[in-house]
Structure formats: structure tokens, C-alpha cells
């Protein structure tokens, strides 16, 4: 099955996206203008060349050790995240809207976090019920009254976006704790430039390789100190995102530390080096709150640093992201983000939420139970695509199981309509085929808010699947934002 004859008017081996879905490359029988060059390239590229390029990419990723640890994978601890060689392209004007929308959203979320850990005005105003915040598992009382530099809580945020069949982007969820994937965004670009330099040269693509510099600058700005010592705190090489931790540490030129590499003396943090103890001022931590400090949180944590919270509350170290940000990216708080934008910024949201039913509300629960086969149901505390139900793809047994779970713990779930995620040409076993995608831009907050153009495009590799998470077999694509439309 060749890549040639891609146009829809050609033979049976063409590219046929579902007409009810928004396809990034074609609209009906017409190729979208910004994809014309790629369409032409696909049409003239022999299948064997595409196969060879994919094999080359896999070999490179494997040699580089760009791997991902899958929880519960009995076959082995390291796997490649599938990289699809066909880029996803975003016109400049679309990106401008997305960037403004993401900046606005993260700005409001940081304001929300500052507020709930101080005056709690949004609760007093009746915009967000108190129990959603104060009863939230991720709300951290230790943060109450603690002043953070620049009032920034989430220095690195990932905003998950999808495009619905009407062509509109929606925010699927916010990630304010330890969002991952940026290293794949960067490595995907390197790989595309290596495999298809001519194709890249024929497009004016905005660069992304300055992300580590922007990240470092944001981390420097997070500290009141002049030249702070920055480290990345990793749970270690068996963590699923270890490659990314090591990649960012190397890219920024900062040490990659484990909990046992740090020690707290007199409420100050030091790292143990071959030249003695060296002070640490900023910790870009890739550990969940619960594991950060065995004296403050889980006492059985061997990943964290005893006494870290004392140093933090004394203002002697910055944690990026701050403790307690999870309350703002909780799925039960997600429905209130547009209200936060109005409340804190006096603006209308640029990006819309996906309509959401909160199962803790009896009326919403009734609706969800009555329409379960049509809905996507998620755990409010879930992530990585685990613990969710995709109604249209579920068996009767799975639906029954979920009904029971919803009735037992309704507060633990939200539901959303099954959105028709947009599709993008993807090189699969059968040739070029449409597959569902999403987009995760990364938003950095220091003295100013910064984004690199694009982000990580994740793709569901199975036909018809909506699950894009790499932990469940999803892949990634290089994301191109064009310099001009």
C-alpha cells in the first residue's frame, strides 16, 4: 500500500478521514493550505522510504535511550514511545489564539492558587464551593499563608487541548504538578530535521530548541536570589519520565539529584558533592507532594528530603512547582476555571472548557448514569489515561462495573461528552491513516509567562482510539507552528 495517490479522489488506497471529525490535513476533498506541501511530499514518497525513515527514527531513539518506563509492564522496564514521522502543523494565527488562551488560563490558575492559600476570596464570593478546595486531597494546609516569590505556584504547566469536529479547540485538562513530555517535543523536532531536512526547509517553522533556556530563566526568576543554584529532583532512573529529567538537567547544565543527594541543615538545603556540601536555592522537583518530605508528608517516602518543607516554609528554597498545586488541576475544580478567569482577570476565557458533569452533584450523576454509553468518565484524581471509561468503546460488563463505581463514590468522578478529537495523517502499518490527536503546550511562569510555539502532539495509534497517553500505547508527533499563515 503506497503513500502515493494520497488524494481523496484517487484509488482505494487514499487517505479517508471520517467526515464527522475535523481532520488537520484535509477538509472534504480539499487539502488545507498549510498542509499542501506535506500532502505533495506524501504523494511522491515511496512507501519503502517512509518505512526506512521510521526504522531510522526508532534506531536513533533506541541508541539515545529515549525510552519510557511503563507501569506494570512485565515485558521489560524500558520502551520506546512511538514517534510518528508525519508532523502536525498549526497555522500561526491559530497558535496565537492558543498561546494567549493558555497564558490567560495559567495566569488565572496561579492567581487562584495564591488566593486559596491566602484570603480565599473566591470561596467567600461563592464562586467555588469551599469543600471542593478545603476537602480536596491535594489541598496542602502547610501552604496556608506562605508567600511565594512572584506569587507563582505553577512555574511549569501543561495545558491539554483538543480540537472538536467544529474546528474549535477546547481545554481537556490542566497539568500543574509535574507535567511531562517536553523532552519528546524537543527530540521529535531534532529527529524530523535529521530525517527530512528538505521538507523542514520548505516550511518556515518556529523553533522550539530554546525551551531549556526559557525554563532555566523561569527557574532563575522564581528565586529572590541573584544567581540561584538550581537542581532537578528526580525519583530516579526507574521513574517513567527519567529520560526527561536527565535530558532537562543536561540541557540546562544543572545537577540531576535524588532525594539522598540533598540534606537540610539549619533549614537550608544542600547537595552532597565531591567538593563538600553546596547550597541549593531552586529545586525543579519531579516528585509528587506526598513523597517530597518524610517529615511532612508520607513518612515511608525514601525519595524525598527530610526537613525540606521547613526549608521551604522558611523561604530558603524554591520548589517548582510549589507544593499544593494539585488542587488546581484536579478534575473536580476544572469546571470552575472559566469562572476563575472572570474572577481574577475580569476577562472572558479565550479557550473553552469541555462541558463537564460533576458526579458529586445528584442531577449530574443521574444524567451520567442515564447516558453512560455516550460519555467519557474520569477519576478526579486520575492521570495518564488510567481509571477512565470511554463509553462508546466499553462493553456491557465495563459499563455495569462503572455504574457500580459511580454509585459507590460519585464524588470521585467527572464525565464529559465523547468529543470527536481531530485526526491527523499518521504513518501506520497499513500506510497513511487518520488518527486522533491532542496537543500539550507548555507554559512557563517566571516574571513573565513564556511558551515555545506548539508543544507535544500525542497521537492514539489504534484506529478509532481516543486514548493518546504514551503509558497506554499512544505515540507522539513533531508539532510545527508556522511563522506565518
Amino acid at each position, binding site marked *: 500500500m503506497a503513500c502515493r495517490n494520497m488524494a481523496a479522489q484517487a484509488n482505494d488506497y487514499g487517505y479517508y478521514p471520517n467526515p464527522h471529525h475535523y481532520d488537520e490535513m484535509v477538509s472534504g476533498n480539499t487539502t488545507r493550505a498549510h498542509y499542501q506541501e506535506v500532502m505533495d511530499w506524501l504523494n511522491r514518497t515511496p512507501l519503502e522510504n517512509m518505512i526506512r525513515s521510521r526504522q531510522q527514527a526508532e534506531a536513533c531513539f533506541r541508541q539515545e535511550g529515549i525510552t519510557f518506563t511503563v507501569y506494570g509492564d512485565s515485558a521489560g522496564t524500558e520502551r520506546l514511545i512511538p514517534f510518528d514521522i508525519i508532523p502536525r502543523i498549526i497555522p500561526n494565527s491559530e497558535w496565537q489564539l492558543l498561546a494567549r488562551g493558555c497564558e490567560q488560563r495559567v495566569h488565572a490558575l496561579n492567581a487562584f492558587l495564591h488566593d486559596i492559600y491566602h484570603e480565599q476570596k473566591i470561596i467567600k464570593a461563592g464562586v467555588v464551593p469551599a469543600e471542593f478546595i478545603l476537602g480536596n486531597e491535594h489541598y496542602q494546609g502547610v501552604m496556608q499563608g506562605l508567600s511565594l516569590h512572584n506569587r507563582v505556584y505553577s512555574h511549569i504547566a501543561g495545558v491539554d487541548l483538543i480540537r472538536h469536529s467544529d474546528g474549535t479547540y477546547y481545554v481537556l485538562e490542566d497539568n500543574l504538578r509535574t507535567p511531562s513530555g517536553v523532552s519528546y517535543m524537543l527530540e521529535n523536532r531534532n529527529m524530523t530535521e535529521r530525517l527530512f531536512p528538505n521538507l523542514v526547509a520548505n516550511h518556515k517553522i518556529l523553533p522550539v530548541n530554546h525551551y531549556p533556556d526559557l525554563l532555566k530563566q523561569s527557574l532563575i526568576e522564581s528565586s529572590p536570589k541573584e544567581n540561584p543554584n538550581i537542581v532537578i529532583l528526580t525519583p530516579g532512573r526507574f521513574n517513567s519520565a527519567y529520560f526527561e529529567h536527565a535530558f532537562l538537567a543536561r540541557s540546562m547544565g544543572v545537577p540531576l539529584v535524588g532525594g539522598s543527594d540533598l540534606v537540610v541543615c539549619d533549614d537550608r538545603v544542600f547537595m*552532597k558533592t565531591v*567538593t563538600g556540601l553546596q547550597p541549593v536555592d531552586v529545586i525543579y522537583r519531579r516528585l509528587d507532594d506526598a513523597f517530597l518530605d518524610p517529615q511532612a508528608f508520607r513518612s515511608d517516602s525514601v525519595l524525598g528530603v527530610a526537613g525540606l518543607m521547613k526549608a521551604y516554609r522558611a523561604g530558603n528554597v524554591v520548589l517548582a512547582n510549589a507544593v499544593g498545586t494539585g488542587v488546581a488541576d484536579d478534575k473536580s475544580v476544572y469546571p470552575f476555571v472559566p469562572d476563575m478567569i472572570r474572577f481574577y482577570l475580569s476577562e472572558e476565557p479565550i479557550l473553552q472548557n469541555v462541558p463537564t458533569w460533576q458526579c458529586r452533584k445528584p442531577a449530574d450523576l443521574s444524567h451520567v448514569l442515564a447516558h453512560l454509553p455516550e460519555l467519557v468518565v474520569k477519576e478526579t484524581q486520575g492521570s495518564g489515561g488510567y481509571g477512565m471509561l470511554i463509553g462508546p468503546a466499553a462493553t456491557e460488563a465495563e459499563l455495569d462495573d462503572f455504574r457500580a463505581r459511580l454509585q459507590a463514590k460519585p464524588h470521585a468522578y467527572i464525565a464529559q461528552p465523547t468529543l470527536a478529537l481531530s485526526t491527523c495523517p499518521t504513518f501506520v502499518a497499513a500506510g497513511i491513516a487518520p488518527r486522533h490527536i491532542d496537543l500539550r503546550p507548555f507554559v512557563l511562569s517566571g516574571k513573565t509567562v513564556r511558551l515555545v510555539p506548539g508543544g507535544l502532539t500525542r497521537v492514539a495509534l489504534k484506529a478509532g482510539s481516543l486514548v493518546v497517553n504514551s503509558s497506554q500505547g499512544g505515540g507522539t508527533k513533531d508539532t510545527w507552528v508556522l511563522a506565518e499563515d
Partner: protein
Amino acid sequence: MLLLSAAADLYWLGRYLSRSQQLVALLLDSLQKASLDDLGIPLSLTGSWQSYYQQHMILAEEGLAEFFVSTANPASLSNCLQAMRSDAQATRGCISHALWLTMNSLYLEWQSRLAKPRLFADNLALYAWLQPELDKVQQLLDDDLANEANQFIRMGQLLEEIDYGLRQHAVADLVAPVVPALRCDVASLLKEVNSLRPEQWSRVQQTTEQLQQAVNNLPEAKATAATSAVQQVVQQFTHRLADVFAA
């Protein structure tokens, strides 16, 4: 700024690299000569006679070649390379990108070759392939002496060579002029160790000086008691080093 934990991983990376280099050279030599005495030398030097006879009925070149590939043998090349790669992975933020790529590629290719069915000739070919690949890793280290991370890799290599030299010296059947090489290695090790901050490394430095004295007093001719005494100082050195790494 090199972390103590990273220094420990780098030191062990060096030890496993050196161990792999010595072992593959020894195996190629022993298997090519193929007398029973020669076949026994790798087992003597690695202390793995008992382990060998648990897996093979007789001492033969086919069995020996397979034994030092097998992951069931703790002293095998497979286990050395895996440990080396693990240490490289743990320190990939400190070592050069080229070094990481080379070591990771070596390990992946070894795994790939291991997965294929192998007879004696295939195992010999595996060793013959490995030797120059390890040389490539060594070349990268030799070309980047200024790198702080490489200093600890070198320390690990030097200690492994000293340990290996002492084991050679202890094996009665081996006729090898190892004492001069030992003295040279210890002098190099002392130079590396003395470049570290005494506030932190003084006990390691003192033990290295003791090691130098012991090796300088080692007779050229084999003497079991003297060799044993030096091996004990080597043990003390590794303990002092471990104490600093664990601080």
C-alpha cells in the same frame, strides 16, 4: 558540581569497563590456546570454578565460552556490560553525550547478538566484536581527560586493574610480570586521589598511600602472604571510598 552519588556510579562504571576489557582479552587468549590449563585461568581469576561446574559437566572451550556470556554467571560479560550501562544511565547527565551513546549502543548491540542462537564459533565472534567496541569507549575517555566525571571513571578503572593484577599475582600457574604494572597503576591512582579535597577525602588518601607502600614492598616472585596483605589494603581502600560516597 559532581554529586557524591554520581561519583560512586562513575567509579563503578570504570570498574565494570575495566573488568570487561580484561575479561574479553583473557577469554580470547585462553580460548585460542585451548589447553585445559589455559581454559582454567579465567575461572581462577574470577573465582568461578564452582559456579562453572554447577552449569557444565566438563571443562571445555564450548562450555567456557558460553559460561562467560551467560547471565546466570554473575562474573559474565553480560552482567558486566549491564552493570556498566546502568551506571552510565544513572550518570548520563554527567558523562559526555558521545560516551553515553557509545555505551548504550554497545549494550543494545550485545543484547541483540545475545538473543540469536549461538554455537562456540558465534561466542568467539561475539568476544572478537566486543573487544574493539570497548576500545572505542576507552578512546572517548582518553580524549576527555579534563572532564570531572571521567576522573572517577579512571579511579574505578585503576582500582580494577590493581585488583586484577593482584589476582594474577596470586594464581600460581600464571607467569606474568605484573608487579611493575601494579606499581604504575597505584602511582596513578594516588595522583588522582590526591587531587581531591583532603577535608573530605583524607582517609581515602591515607589508605592509598598505604596501598602504595604495600605494593612497593611486594616481591616480584609470587608470595601468597604478601599478595594477600596487599589485597587487604585494597579492600580497605574500597571501604574508605564507600564511606565517603555514603556520607
